């Protein structure tokens, strides 16, 4: 029974992948061509707005440097996001277990998002230096909120009757959490993870802008001051690519960790 489902779906992805990618690709190509033609026709200085072709060509020539700067950014992203996830899980679990903490912390968490990180980022550097710590802090600050909210929301999404069922079986609060609330929250968690990871990369770039030795952020800042707008945009493209890849990776992780979720969803179609 399971096999038949797997086999049935096996051929699907290829055709759908094409039909899913064709429309956005078409628009993207149209945009790039317009841009190229406009730059060529108007004779804009490359320092002000380089043509896509120039970005590609110069970016390719600088590929080793760009790659050398991508690695530290990736490293920061992973470390920062790992810390962010730890914080988010801790907060969400605390909030889930204590109604008082929920009432106390949730408004503060929301308010914390109203603080302009760009203004305190330089202070963070002064306080914590320019090693991994300040970057980790900035990335965590930027990303912990959506993940925490997603988790809290996920825990709350647990069916009240499922909790009652567990209670009728004699499960204490902790067992209720492990057997029902935790697995119920995982789909929400993965949705939140996706939002978080996209912010994590731009957060790392941001942290580097404020103070770093290497990394895509500092590379962009340096190229900007060397009037190499083409290389700035090449690095922007690389950053976007990295974000999109990490974003897609979360789908892989989701399938691996909560296979029942996507399977169940798919079975509703049939």
């Amino acid at each position: 029974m399971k096999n038949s489902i797997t086999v049935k779906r096996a051929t699907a992805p290829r055709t759908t992948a094409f039909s899913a990618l064709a429309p956005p690709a078409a628009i993207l190509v149209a945009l790039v061509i317009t841009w190229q033609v406009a730059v060529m026709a108007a004779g804009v200085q490359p320092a002000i707005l380089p043509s896509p072709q120039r970005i590609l060509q110069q970016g390719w020539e600088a590929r080793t440097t760009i790659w050398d700067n991508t690695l530290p950014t990736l490293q920061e992203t992973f470390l920062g996001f790992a810390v962010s996830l730890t914080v988010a899980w801790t907060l969400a679990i605390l909030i889930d277990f204590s109604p008082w903490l929920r009432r106390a912390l949730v408004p503060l968490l929301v308010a914390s998002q109203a603080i302009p990180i760009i203004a305190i980022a330089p202070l963070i550097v002064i306080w914590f230096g320019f090693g991994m710590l300040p970057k980790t802090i900035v990335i965590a600050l930027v990303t912990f909120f959506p993940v925490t909210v997603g988790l809290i929301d996920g825990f709350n999404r647990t069916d009240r009757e499922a909790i009652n069922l567990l209670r009728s079986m004699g499960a204490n609060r902790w067992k209720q959490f492990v057997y029902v609330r935790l697995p119920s929250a995982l789909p929400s968690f993965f949705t939140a993870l996706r939002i978080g990871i996209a912010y994590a990369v731009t957060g790392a770039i941001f942290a580097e802008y404020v103070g770093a030795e290497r990394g895509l952020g500092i590379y962009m800042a340096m190229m900007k001051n060397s009037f190499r707008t083409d290389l700035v945009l090449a690095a922007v493209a690389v950053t976007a690519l990295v974000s999109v890849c990490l974003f897609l990776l979360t789908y892989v992780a989701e399938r691996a960790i909560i296979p029942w979720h996507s399977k169940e969803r798919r079975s509703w179609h049939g």
Partner: protein
Amino acid sequence: SATGTASSTALTPVAFALDWTPNTNHTGLYVALEKGYFTQAGLEVKVLPYSQSSTDALINAGSADFGISFQDTATFAAAAGVRNISVMSVLQHDATAIGVLASRDDIRSPKDLDGKTLGLADPSATFPTEASDVIKNDGGTGEFRKITLGTSAYEALYAGKVDFTSAFTTWEGIDAALRGTPMKFFALHDYGLPDQYSVIVEANRAWTAKHPAATAQFVQALQKGYQYAADRPDAAAKILIDANPGAFENTELVYQSQKKLSASYLKDANGKVGTQTAETWQQLADFLYRAGLLADEDGKPLTTALDTSTLFTEHYLNEK
């Protein structure tokens, strides 16, 4: 203050970009603003505060018509295809230097900076090479760690998180002393580098071509402001302080700094402000060229020396 009486003729708008938050390098500008020199000249000057975008780029793109820049970055920019023109100098000599905390006994001369950490105040393309050259000329290898910190560089230096930085002896130097954490400096021209106009006023070349009269009016009004600052440091410092409420925690910094600038940096040998010479421009460009720092817009190192004769002009200055 005499904010010029609004005449019936429309004023020509001018956007002026700053390189940093207000400091004594800008005194002449605020004097000219407060004394109404610009309005009298038929100009409405809008000051664009310091931002993430370098003034060279802003002026090149036409986002600003004039702005404060530096001879070294302007030379570097010109090689990379930027078309700005320097219309006056602000400081006749190089007031920037390699700065370290005075308390650092382990750093006695530039060669001790090998393997240390540089905190860059802005991701300047020129300073690290200049510093490296200084160290080599002092017998070191010229290798060090480079951290781009932006405006936090000085706090990082005071806090001991970086070992050296580039600083204005006439601003950060005085500030450090007043704070009780004094700095010591290694001047670049003491270690084989040519002297330079560390602060200049740049213009968008197309704008000057389109508004030659307004350009002259502007430059001369600004020159008049800086002349005032050179002649009356205390009065000028007060104008700067009043024009920027809240910006100076310790106004003593402004007075001391302005005194020093007025005494040794603003006036040329003839007591005139704003003048520039072809020698000073070409010497620095030749040095940068030899150091392999100048690159064209594709990032390829220049293969012939840069001709600086078109990068500056004294044409708009007051004749007097």
